[in-house]
């Protein structure tokens, strides 16, 4: 996160397609809890008059999910993995006005 970019091979199937999995390093997780800027909340409320896609929320969720993935990647990187397989996502409403975005997977070493 400190300016360095970690690139890992990621997939949500049981292996990395086209690569051989050498060893498994266990579960890695990443999560983030986000709340909404109140000004944007008002705009989203205005958008609710017509319904449809709520762009402000979509944006927020995308950027927080990327952060969760980044944390998971750092966790895997710290264990010396170079791939994550079987990634799953979960979203839950932990409190009024906040959402938790969670992702988890299995860190592996591939050749």
């Amino acid at each position, binding site marked *: 996160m400190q300016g360095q970019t970690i690139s890992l091979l990621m997939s949500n199937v049981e292996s990395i397609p086209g690569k051989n999995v050498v060893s498994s390093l266990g579960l890695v997780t990443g999560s983030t809890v986000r709340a909404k800027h109140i000004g944007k909340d008002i705009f989203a409320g205005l958008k609710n008059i017509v*319904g449809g896609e709520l762009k402000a929320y979509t944006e927020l969720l995308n950027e927080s999910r990327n952060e969760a993935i980044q944390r998971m990647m750092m966790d895997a990187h710290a264990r010396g993995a170079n791939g994550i397989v079987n990634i799953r996502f979960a979203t839950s409403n932990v409190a009024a006005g906040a959402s938790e975005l969670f992702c988890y997977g299995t860190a592996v070493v591939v050749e």
Partner: protein
Amino acid sequence: MIILYIIASIVVPLSFPFISWALGRWYQAGITSKLMENEKILGSILDDKMSVTTSNKVSMIGAEYSTLLHVSLCVGPSMGQMFFMWLKSIFGGRLHSYDVVLDFGRREALLRLKQQAAERGCTSIVNIRIETSVVSFAKTQKSKQASVEFLAFATGIR
């Protein structure tokens, strides 16, 4: 003058659900037809060269590149529609407005997943999963402002 003000203060809040409902129907018909156009343009291109599947038992030997694709999308019905759905839910039955909104969200999420795959040069998408969850960033519990999040994720292979 005062009578006019009183009438306005009664009529405007009463007509708000109807206005919102009508605006919502109009706006959503617009975005749905736009989505159908996009599906026609992009769908036909992608269907030719991509195999899209929910299965993970696909032969992946010879894949030279793989990446995780994920798309999330928030949709919500309009306030007027929510009001009428609340009325409808007294009697139960099919809530048509919700059907339309949720169907739109899911199709849009899949379309964006395909677009993302096309941008990264993938030729097939495997193991697609779609998750639905209710998210609300409203600061008070009283406010009924709820939206539904669709998350679609998959592995793209080239």
